[in-house]
């Protein structure tokens, strides 16, 4: 298995970012993602990059805004309470069309909560915890390898669409080790130039401006229409999902860590003769509605499982729109559901206990 290395999720993510051409990292410590800034503090100077431990999450996201606006691939990472503090900044990035990657290794909330893994920031990530009509692309990787893979994709899409991209992990994904194959490093100098970025005019061109202020309502709406057109394009092109056992009658919808556990439960359920499949969104926004459409014709029921008390289930319900029962099972606050618990819920669904 040459090329494989055993890495902690947080460190693999950080190394993948460096290989994706990220040279600027701005962060503020918070458990359970400290290995990301710690790794970056050692690694970035080696590749001519810069690491700053910012004075706060607010400062960090605004440094990303500055660096991203200046044309660089920049990243920040945090966990739940820290990500709440970044919402104004993310809204600014979305509005000013500044690319950048924001990692949230979700922990139990609300409030100070706990530090164990959770998925209860789904609403915040997919609906925009900040103000205004904006969205961010959101990835919900399920393995350390997938985390590495989506990091590259995140930087690519951030630049392509000039938009902030969120990677929604959780404490478990960040802390666990798994073998990964790391991608070939990209030299940031080889990336296409960004004519819109602030670099100094050099006296050779008119000034560029990175801005989100539109005092005239019609202009502000026009900015929004531009964003919405972009979002429609993203929805059309960038949905990612995995379907295991697509010919099933019942489906469990889950992402990230939870999806791994659901997979175990599904294996057991199938062993017991139930025709159950897994529908695993990889992009949480755009929500992979198309994947749902491919199975909805024959689906007799959906069970959404989350480490939250019911967030992604709304997206499932919105897609299913009454065409099949949708039930929900969730644990929260850092409790990871067991495959046995999920198996019980699967059997309830199969026996018709699913609620709309």
């Amino acid at each position, binding site marked *: 298995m040459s090329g494989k290395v055993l890495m902690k999720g947080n460190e693999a993510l950080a190394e993948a970012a460096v290989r994706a051409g990220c040279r*600027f990292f*701005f962060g503020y410590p918070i458990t359970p993602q400290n290995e990301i800034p710690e790794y970056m503090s050692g690694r970035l100077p080696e590749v001519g990059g*810069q690491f*700053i431990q*910012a*004075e*706060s999450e*607010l*400062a*960090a996201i*605004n*440094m*990303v*805004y*500055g*660096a*991203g*606006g*200046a*044309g*660089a691939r*920049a990243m920040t990472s945090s966990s739940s309470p820290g990500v709440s503090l970044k919402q*104004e*900044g993310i809204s*600014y990035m979305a509005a*000013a069309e500044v690319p950048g990657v924001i990692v949230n290794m979700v922990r139990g909330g609300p409030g100070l909560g706990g530090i164990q893994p959770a998925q209860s920031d789904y609403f915040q990530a997919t609906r925009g915890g900040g103000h205004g009509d904006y969205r961010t692309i959101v990835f919900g990787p399920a393995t350390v390898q997938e985390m590495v893979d989506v990091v590259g994709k995140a930087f690519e899409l951030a630049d392509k669409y000039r938009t902030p991209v969120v990677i929604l992990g959780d404490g478990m994904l960040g802390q666990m080790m798994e073998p990964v194959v790391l991608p070939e490093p990209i030299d940031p100098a080889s990336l296409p130039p960004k004519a819109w970025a*602030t*670099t*100094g*005019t*050099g*006296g*050779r061109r008119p*000034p*560029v*401006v*990175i*801005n*989100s*202020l539109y005092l005239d309502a019609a202009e502000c709406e026009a900015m929004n229409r531009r964003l919405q057109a972009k979002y429609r394009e993203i929805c059309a092109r960038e949905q990612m999902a995995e379907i295991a056992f697509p010919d099933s009658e019942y489906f469990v919808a889950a992402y990230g860590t939870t999806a791994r556990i659901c997979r175990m439960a599904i294996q057991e359920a199938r062993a017991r003769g139930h025709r159950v499949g897994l529908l695993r969104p990889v992009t949480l926004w755009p929500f992979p509605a198309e994947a749902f459409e491919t199975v909805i014709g024959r689906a007799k029921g959906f069970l959404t499982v989350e480490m939250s008390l019911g967030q992604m289930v709304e997206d499932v319900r919105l897609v299913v729109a009454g065409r099949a029962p949708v039930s929900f099972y969730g644990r929260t606050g850092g409790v990871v559901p067991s495959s046995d618990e999920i198996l019980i819920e699967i059997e309830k669904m199969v026996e018709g206990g699913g609620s709309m």
Partner: protein
Amino acid sequence: MTSRDTERPLGAEVVYERPRALADVVTHYCPGCTHGIAHRLVAEVLDELDVAGRAIGVASVGCSVLAYKYFNVDMQQAAHGRAPAVATGIKRVHPEAVVFTYQGDGDLAAIGTAEIIHAAMRGENLTVIFINNAIFGMTGGQMAPTTLVAQKTTTTPRGRDPARAGYPIRVCEMVSVLDGAGYVARAALSSPSNIARAKKAVRKAFESQLGGYGLGLVELLSSCNVNWGMSPGDALRWIETDMIPVYPLGVFKDRSEAGAEAARMEVAG
């Protein structure tokens, strides 16, 4: 001398012309607002140091929010209070660029307190133009941290009462305590002579960046005649009679003066 001659008279020596780094537009500032003077000084210094082509400015939120339309350089508009963080991001990406923020007293001394202190702490090679007009101008005249004791504002309708609303914050005195601050000075935009001194300070604050001495900050005592409820002329006089006693003018720190390369920080880049 009609207003239509835009040509330079042949053979005449230029005493004053519009700086090239200032965009050729009319600003939205109220008549007599000294924000316009501060803009001009910054542009003059950019021209004199010949760095407009590598300048990147950061506009903050306040009356000067539209500064991105007024300077003839690349600009980023920053969230309220976060300009020093935004500028830090830019400067680290482009260490050779000349990066400055332009911030009001609400922006820098209220919501953005942590950002300015920490940019100074890090010794970021940035230039900060800090407009102290003792009020939140943009939002209609509320108290600023720099509002004087007993000064009436829309949120201190009976005058600022220290027992409830505290005391004016002296930014230069506070920032100059930090080792990463390279140049810290306060000047006033209240008269031609004070403006001349202000310009020197602005120039020094840019030179501090160019020399790698760390953060250069100039506090400019400014007027907001509209929200102070005064005529433009009275507002300038109030700066001199009421503000300067609370905010003494002068240079609070100048690491370049310490001479010696010893004082010079490595350019963070």
